[in-house]
């Protein structure tokens, strides 16, 4: 017990000195408004809380960023920063990042885009078959364009078009609804036309197929 109390007394002294000096380590800062904090540090200290250390988020509330297209990430971070992307999950969590510098945005995008691509997860086989059909061929009679045209044959994305392979199905469903029903993602306006005729069950089927397309490493 004496050792514990001695430790506690030392701790008080140490805490007091730290309080007075207020020293900090920029490599472990969580200050999102300090331009001197690197994007990598912000990714580790702040973003990782929701998106995971390598961008492989656990909760489907938060999109996976692992191996995401860099241009797409830069565009989204820029839109969050300028409050131009206003879907509810974005405003709830991302609207605080208003002071990111262009260099930090670039570093953050570089950090997550260079991670191993998102992992996949198998789901309902029947649903996946329907999802794959829509993904590869679209629904010509309804005006739904095939996803592969922009997002690539493996759902890997291309520049401003995001990687979809391995993304949480719930997140994809949520975002398709945002495109269909709102104008909260102006940069994604073309998706309104692409998805407007997609039924709820087809939306789920596509999302589940996309989630199953992820990497299996």
């Amino acid at each position, binding site marked *: 017990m004496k050792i514990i109390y001695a*430790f506690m007394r030392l701790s008080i002294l140490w805490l007091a000195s730290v309080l007075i000096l207020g020293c900090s380590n920029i490599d472990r800062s969580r200050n*999102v408004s300090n331009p001197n904090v690197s994007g990598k540090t912000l990714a580790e200290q702040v973003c990782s*809380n929701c998106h995971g250390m390598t961008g492989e988020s656990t909760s489907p509330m938060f999109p996976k960023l692992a191996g995401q297209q860099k241009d797409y990430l830069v565009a989204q971070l820029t839109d969050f920063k300028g409050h131009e992307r206003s879907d509810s999950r974005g405003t709830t969590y991302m609207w605080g990042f208003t002071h990111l510098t262009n260099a930090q945005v670039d570093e953050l995008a570089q950090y997550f885009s260079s991670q191993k691509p998102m992992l996949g997860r198998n789901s309902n086989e029947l649903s996946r078959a329907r999802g794959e059909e829509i993904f590869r061929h679209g629904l010509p009679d309804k005006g739904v364009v095939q996803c592969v045209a922009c997002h690539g044959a493996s759902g890997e994305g291309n520049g401003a078009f995001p990687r979809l392979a391995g993304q949480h199905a719930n997140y994809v469903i949520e975002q398709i609804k945002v495109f269909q029903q709102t104008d909260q993602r102006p940069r994604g306006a073309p998706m309104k036309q692409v998805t407007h005729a997609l039924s709820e069950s087809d939306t789920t089927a596509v999302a589940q197929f996309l989630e199953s397309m992820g990497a299996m490493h």
Partner: protein
Amino acid sequence: MKIISTRFHSGCLLIGVAMLTLLGMQSAQAVPSFANQTGQSCVACHAGGQYPELTPYGRMFKLTGYTMGERSNPLAAMVVASRTSTKNSDGSTLNGRAIVDFASVFLAGKVTDNIGGFAQYTQSFYDTQDTNNNWTGHFAADNFDLRYADRQIDAKSDVVWGLTLHNNPSVQDVWNSSPAWGYPYVSTTHGAFGALPAATLVEGALAQQVAGIGGYAFLNKSVYAEITSYQTAKGSTSFLSYGSKTGDSNHPLTLLDGNALYWRLAYTHEWGAQNMMVGAFGLNARTFPNDSATNMPVTDAGSTHFKDIGIDAQYQYLMSPHTFTGNFRAIHETINDASFTAYAAPASLNTLMVKGSYVYREKYGGSLVYKTVTGSADTSAYSFSALNVPDASMWTTELFWIPLQNVRLGIQYSWFTKYAGASSNYDGSGRNASDNATTYLYLWTAF
């Protein structure tokens, strides 16, 4: 007519406060300090927006010393208006009256990249009655937690560690199965039967009475360990017990005999939209009795030794629009009172809390809670019981509405199936446990 008139005025007061609050929110666009600092909505840190239940992100925000985000205005405030009604009146002049109950000021947020804090001071508007039966207010320290925290994280490991100075055992905890932040999140302050008739020491008896310095570590987002030592908050740390003084008849300061030790272990895991925690904690403390006439602590006649050991668990499902949280806590306490003041003989006490909450779209929610206390009979400690026991079982249901993220309107109904050891005539004077059913209507707002 008088009843109708009183009810009408009570209703008008609550509606008036609600309207002023809503107008205030819209014109000032004020937000509490942490939301200011992070630029994020309350639901980022609070499960379903039900303050103070924390999400995994909110827990990490607290464990990293409230330092995420940018330094901003640290001032915030909270006001609670309420109306408490006891089925068979407890005799309080406030029974059935709508009142602005209490208001708090906060100094909260980031100080440096490693230091942050949360300091709350509260003005109670209906604290005590003077000789003319007029209510007087009281301003006092509320919860306080100042931290230094650091985080070493890379692809292989994630270590969060820190030191905390605080004034309430378990206020530093990040799970809502812990005593300080457990249910009820807001409750009647003047109803005689808003809670169980007895509680273990760790369940609030030392709140705003002590100063604790603790060290903690959170490893790989899975294992949490902490140890804290407490002393009476006096002298240089008296700001942590502000409002309580030795000898004060209404707010006497509890004096610890030496140091008290608190420990905490928890394991947590996240999968998909779900997360869980199982944990244990303990408190070992000795307190001096207060003289019943002078309220001064008696330090030369022995002290009361409390040994608390608890287990707790929490489950959360967080997937908008649905939020579900479940909490469990059980505490066993052994008591040895060498002064024979508070207890006539060695005693034991057990408490249990099980709670489930559901919130839809971060707006509409409800809770169902079951609490019990059981203990050994004692002729000194439980004079309210004809059987000299604390045993009670209490159910609470709550419905609430969150029209804005910093406004909550709720109603709680609590009823007892057993009180002071019996369901009927528990006091020997004919009062039944069912007479203690309490309805609590509240309007909570922070800005």
